């Protein structure tokens, strides 16, 4: 490994690396059934998956599940602790925290999934170009990622957020536009190693177009690390969204963003800690579930990595 080529090491942090992905690629891909069987044996991953399924259902059916609306105020019940009426208590202006946390799942999942899709698309295209064509394109794209990696992520996100406004969609765009760096590097590493594989050489010798070779012959084999990384990325995007909300550049009131709710709990830590624990716990459990599922997927897709 040369020192500048730290992509590999980086990929190793968040997902599979070029080095470990190498041996798998030559083999027959494990059957879907096999992957599921191995995944199911991982208890933590199953718990994580269960939580995510539950959360998704809650988000979809939020209006049916939540006892109150997100702006509905109970008169006189400010900063009350959990009770039969308000399972998670009420906030500073008398809104039901439980209902807001449930509706908050919509915000977090939407932002997490959409932003990840945007970063995956950008990262995939740029990484594929860099890895497949090499040369000038590669240098330019890698320099670009260097520049953006040099700016601390949070500064970049906060700066863009300040300019582009503070709506939910702006946050999706910001996180999507800043999150592709690692993905591009992972995809590039995969493509770099795959384009030298014999079957790719063969496809080239047969005169297939470059686009077809990339899409049909390389991409399917590079998917594995992308899937794993993508899963974990949803979790980290949700974390970043919460951080943006916390420093005040995320979705604004009355959007029930979890990060925003935590930041509003800041002042009442002594009198109403539940305002911190419930939305904070929701972020924590959601992100943790994505991590567990991502880890489980990695082990299931590639038992050798364990």
């Amino acid at each position: 490994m040369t020192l500048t080529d730290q992509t590999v090491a980086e990929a190793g942090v968040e997902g599979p690396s070029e080095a470990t992905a190498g041996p798998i690629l030559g083999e027959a891909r494990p059957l879907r059934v096999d992957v599921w069987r191995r995944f199911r044996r991982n208890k933590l991953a199953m718990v994580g998956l269960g939580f995510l399924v539950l959360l998704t259902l809650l988000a979809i059916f939020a209006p049916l599940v939540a006892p109150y609306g997100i702006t509905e105020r109970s008169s006189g019940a400010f900063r009350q602790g959990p009770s039969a009426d308000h399972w998670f208590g009420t906030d500073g202006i008398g809104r039901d925290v439980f209902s807001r946390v449930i509706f908050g799942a919509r915000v977090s999942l939407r932002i997490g999934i959409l932003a990840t899709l945007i970063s995956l698309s950008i990262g995939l295209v740029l990484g594929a170009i860099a890895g497949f064509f090499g040369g000038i394109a590669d240098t330019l794209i890698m320099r670009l990622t260097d520049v953006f990696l040099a700016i601390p992520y949070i500064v970049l996100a906060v700066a863009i957020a300040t300019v582009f406004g503070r709506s939910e969609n702006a946050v999706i765009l910001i996180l999507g536009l800043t999150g592709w760096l690692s993905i591009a590097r992972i995809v590039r590493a995969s493509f770099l190693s795959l384009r030298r594989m014999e079957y790719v050489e063969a496809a080239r010798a047969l005169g297939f177009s470059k686009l077809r070779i990339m899409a049909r012959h390389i991409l399917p084999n590079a998917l594995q690390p992308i899937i794993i990384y993508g899963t974990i990325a949803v979790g980290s995007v949700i974390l970043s969204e919460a951080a943006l909300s916390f420093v005040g550049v995320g979705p604004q009131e009355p959007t029930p963003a979890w990060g925003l709710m935590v930041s509003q709990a800041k002042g009442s830590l002594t009198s109403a800690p539940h305002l911190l624990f419930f939305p904070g716990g929701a972020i924590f459990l959601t992100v943790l579930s994505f991590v567990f599922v991502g880890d489980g997927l990695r082990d299931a897709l590639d038992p050798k990595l364990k």
Partner: protein
Amino acid sequence: MTSYIIRRLLLIVPTVFVALSFLFLLFFLLPGDPARLIAGGAERNIDQGVLERIEERYGLDDPVLVQFGNYWKRTIQWDLGESYLNRRSVNEILGDRAVNSIRLAIWAIIIEIVVGISVGLLSAIRRYSWGDRITTIVTAAASAVPVFVLGFVLQYLFAVQPNKLDWPEWARLRTSGIGPDSWTFFFIPTGEQWRYLILPAVTLACVTTALLARMTRGSMLEVLRADYMRTARAKGLAERDVVVKHGLRNAMLPVVTLIGIDFGTAIGAAVLTEFTFGWPGLGSQIVESVQDRDLPVLLGLTLAVVIAYAVINLIVDVSYAWFDPRIRLGKGEHA
């Protein structure tokens, strides 16, 4: 080696230039009139003449490119300008804030290395033990908890609760601010200082500690299977020496690389931690400057952080060569 370092240092220049230019232009698009800010606030009704004088003095009415050129002309001479908000020189703010950030960072790094690496090592050596299983879950959890949520939870448990439950004075920690700001040997807290330091330091260290522990564990598991470990045992070394003298350095190779890469995340964590605890470091100042649209301060501080980031990565690379004699800096390396 020296030529490698020089080459790497030169490479930092274009990266910093492009990054800072990007931020400069981005902030130029920021809504809000800096002249009003300088004059005392966006909301106040300010005399048009005053605003014009301010704009002229700061060159705010010049075309973007002229301002951009001027910015770089000054920056190259390390003239970072002064705050729009309170006219303090950015260099001065930078100096004050950096000292606080560095003190916090030193303690976080100590915790990260001591706890992260030893937990990872123990976990690898006692693989599949209860301790290992708990470590696996706790480290995953630590990487999933938002820094500020962790900060608040720690504040609640160790500062709010002890006061509520009337714990003995020595067990009560402080929730925010830097406190008496009393130090010896630059970074060792004296007197009451530790009560203010400990919670932000732990919070800041948390994510990276977990990551280090996970990486060390994985890497050590690989190393424990290596042939040279068997050789070391065959020599008659005690198991502890086998692990420490022959395993540790090999296991640290991938971890060292990680520390450099993770520095970006660590800066993010520092920003949030300082903001959460009201610790007057670079991170909290950056957030405040963004909120106040105090462009010179923001750009100046970011410049410092970007340079620090690049230099730390360089140090990591160089130390990597020390850790692994197979790496020869500057050879077979094309960037």
